[in-house]
Structure formats: structure tokens, C-alpha cells
């Protein structure tokens, strides 16, 4: 089989075309928000939230309401519980995230079990872009457009409030509202990514391309489009690999995304690069911020 056929032949069928658009939409949207999750060190929260969302999705399926609404409600409920534990009960943040996330995940697993279909759980956890419906793809495209647009418009604001939240408050930025919006957007991406890459693989598409982009470009603002490009590539290339090698699609996409981080680490090599720069400049390495005596 020649290269072009390898690339194009799989997309002869409607369900593979839908899978392609779905992987592209999630691959672009997830890293666009993921750059901010990585910068704000919200990766663990997002990971736990993706587990917690399972409870909301299962409840919504049992009640016959929208899975998206159920998933987002569960994501927000988790964030609220974590905030309560951290602020009121003084539980360390990572402990609170671990307990609440796993608790809701357990409820979700039981809930999905009640649905009666033994394949449902693995479907929700690991996804299957080959089964997405036209309606689900339309929602994914809409979410991708909203996330990319909002990310572009709010990028400088997110940058300045991530850099110095205290200063952002003093100039009147509503940092709490911005944080809530970020968590809602992360939950939204996990929920709409569920059908194609699954809740557990959505977190990989949120994190890995963003980390790879940060390794490759030394500017936060420029790492957003690069992260989306890397996410789109992981979506399409992972889909092709899974088709030709007969592998599960969600995990294959996730492995490609993680592979991008490995490659970016090899290419950027910050550990040797920095030393070389210092030697070139002819100065000895010194701490950037000398503390007050």
C-alpha cells in the first residue's frame, strides 16, 4: 500500500469521516484549554474531574437527560466539594482532589453498571470515535469553536492572572469568575471528548500536547496554537494507526500524544541547552532572584 492510500483509504466510509472530524475537533479544543490547565497546575484536578464526570454521565443516562449537562454538573459538583474540603475542613488540596474524584468515579462505575450494557463502561472510559453520531460531532465542532475563540480572546487575561493573581485582583479582574470559567471549559471538553476518546483519554489530549508545546516554544501565547496543532495531529495520526493496526482508537490517540511529549523533550533538551547558552554568554550560572538578606 502506498503512502497516499494509507492516508486516504480509511476515510472511504461515513463513520471514519465522522471519526476524523470528531478527532480533529477534540484534538484542537482539548490542548487549547489544556495549555491553561498545565500553566495553572490544574492537571491533577482535571484528571480527577474526568473520573468524577463518569458519575454525572451515568446519572444522566439513567435519568434520560443530556449527558453533557450531567457531566458538567458532576465536574462542577466535584470542584465545589474539593473547594469545601480545602477551605472549610483544611484538607490538603491534593488529598481532597483524590478523595472526591475517586469517590465520584466509584459511584459512576456502579451507575454505568446499572445501565445493563457490559460494554458501556469501557466505551465511556476509553471512547470509540467510530461510533460517534452526526449530532455528537456537531456538538464537538461547536465546543471546539467556542473554546478556541474564547481562548484567543481571554488568552492575555488568563496569562496575567496566572502570572500574578493577587495583582489581577488589585486591578479589578474577577479572578474567581475566570477560574470557574476555566473549570467549566475543562469539564465541557472532557464531556464532549467522552464519545470519541473517552473520559480517561480526554485528559491525555488536554495535557500531553500542551506539555509538548511548552517544551518546544518559549512563549505561552505561541504555545496555544502549537498545542492545538499537535493535538489535531495526534487525533488524526492516532486514528489512522488504530485503523491500520487494528488497535483501540482512544488509547492509540493518547499514545501518539504522549509520544509527542517524548519527542519534544528530546528536541528541546532544556537540561543541556541552558548550560550551553550560559557557556556561550561567558557567564557563570547564578540564581535569577537573589533573596533579600
Amino acid at each position: 500500500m502506498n503512502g497516499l492510500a494509507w492516508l486516504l483509504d480509511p476515510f472511504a466510509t461515513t463513520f471514519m469521516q465522522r471519526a476524523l472530524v470528531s478527532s480533529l475537533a477534540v484534538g484542537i479544543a482539548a490542548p487549547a484549554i489544556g495549555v491553561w490547565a498545565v500553566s495553572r497546575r490544574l492537571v491533577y484536578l482535571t484528571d480527577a474531574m474526568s473520573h468524577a464526570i463518569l458519575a454525572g454521565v451515568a446519572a444522566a443516562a439513567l435519568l434520560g437527560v443530556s449527558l453533557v449537562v450531567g457531566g458538567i454538573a458532576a465536574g462542577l459538583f466535584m470542584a465545589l466539594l474539593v473547594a469545601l474540603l480545602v477551605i472549610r475542613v483544611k484538607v490538603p488540596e491534593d488529598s481532597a482532589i483524590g478523595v472526591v474524584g475517586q469517590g465520584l468515579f466509584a459511584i459512576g462505575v456502579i451507575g454505568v453498571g446499572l445501565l445493563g450494557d457490559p460494554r458501556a463502561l469501557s466505551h465511556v472510559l476509553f471512547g470509540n470515535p467510530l461510533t460517534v453520531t452526526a449530532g455528537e460531532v456537531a456538538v464537538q465542532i461547536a465546543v471546539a469553536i467556542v473554546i478556541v475563540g474564547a481562548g484567543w480572546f481571554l488568552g492575555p487575561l488568563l496569562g496575567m492572572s496566572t502570572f500574578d493573581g493577587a495583582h489581577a485582583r488589585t486591578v479589578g479582574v474577577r479572578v474567581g469568575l475566570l477560574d470557574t470559567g476555566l473549570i467549566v471549559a475543562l469539564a465541557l471538553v472532557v464531556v464532549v471528548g467522552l464519545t470519541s476518546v473517552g473520559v480517561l483519554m480526554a485528559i491525555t489530549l488536554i495535557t500531553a500536547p500542551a506539555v509538548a508545546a511548552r517544551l518546544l516554544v518559549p512563549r505561552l501565547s505561541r504555545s496555544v496554537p502549537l498545542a492545538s496543532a499537535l493535538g489535531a495531529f495526534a487525533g488524526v495520526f492516532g486514528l489512522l494507526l488504530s485503523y491500520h493496526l487494528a488497535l483501540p482508537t482512544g488509547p492509540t490517540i493518547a499514545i501518539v500524544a504522549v509520544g509527542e511529549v517524548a519527542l519534544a523533550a528530546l528536541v528541546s533538551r532544556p537540561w543541556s541547552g541552558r548550560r550551553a547558552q550560559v557557556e556561550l554568554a561567558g557567564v557563570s550560572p547564578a540564581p535569577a532572584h537573589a533573596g533579600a538578606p
Partner: protein
Amino acid sequence: MAYVPQRSTARWDLPLTVSEVVVAGCRARGSRWRRPTPDDRGQARISLRTFGIEDLADRTVGALSGGQAQRVLLARAFVQQPRVLLLDEPFAGLDSASADSLSLAIGDLCANGMTVLCAMHELAIARSVFPRTIALDRAVIADGPTVEVLAAEGIEQIFVTRHPSSPAGTVG
């Protein structure tokens, strides 16, 4: 009013540029949600020039020295066009060259009509930059023209030897 804290809790590890950080001060006026306008970037450039760090505009904040980082935070506060600027120990941890250029920049602000209230321990700098000094040691010990306050007997003792933590408030 704008405030520059002593130990900023800012995330200096983020790959933001100096101009991106300084332009954030523009959000003190107008809509907080908008993207920075060309006018905002112009204001940021003027502010960077005021503090002698225009050449650092495209530098990543993580690559700055302590003195440069301090001037970036001052430039960000200056962009807010405050009538009163509060500074908490801006000279702490700076080498003498950085402290000199910072003194000159603060002197310029005062000359342009801004009120600068600065908590500091460096008496020599206070003498050269600030016209008025309030000496504090739990309570106000002295308040008046810098030359008189710092010439008073025992002032150096209070700040340097007995109570190294008591700040001198200085108004320019």
C-alpha cells in the same frame, strides 16, 4: 493607587514576556476583559522606557535578574497611572547598580508629580531620592524632611542595629 509588594507571589517560571506582564497594568482602566490594544502596548513601552528596561521587552520573565524583575513590577504599577505608588522594600536584595537605576527611576516619578510611599531600610538611598521621611519603630518616631529626620541622633542605631526589621516610611 498601585502597590508593588516586597516578595511578589508571581509565577516567574511561566514563559511570559516582560511586555506581556507590564501591559497587564493597563487593565486598571477600562474593561478588564478586553484584549490589550495598540494603545495599551504603547503605554507599556513608555513605562518600560521610564524604568530603563525597554530592551528587555521581549525577554522571558524567568530570565530576569532580581533587579530587573523588581523594575518590571514597578513598570507594571506605573502603567496603571496611579497618583500614589506604594512600594514595599523595592531595594531589598538588589546590587548597587540595580539600586542606582531604580533610585533614578523613582526620582523621575516624583519629579513628574507622583506620590511614592516606600517602605525601606536603605538610609543612603532614602537621603538621595526622597524629600520626606517617616521613621517608624512600632510607632512614628520622626516625620519630616529626610535630611532632618535622618540626621537626628540615634536614627541609624534604630534602623541598623537594634531593630533591623523596623521600616522607614518615606514619601517623595
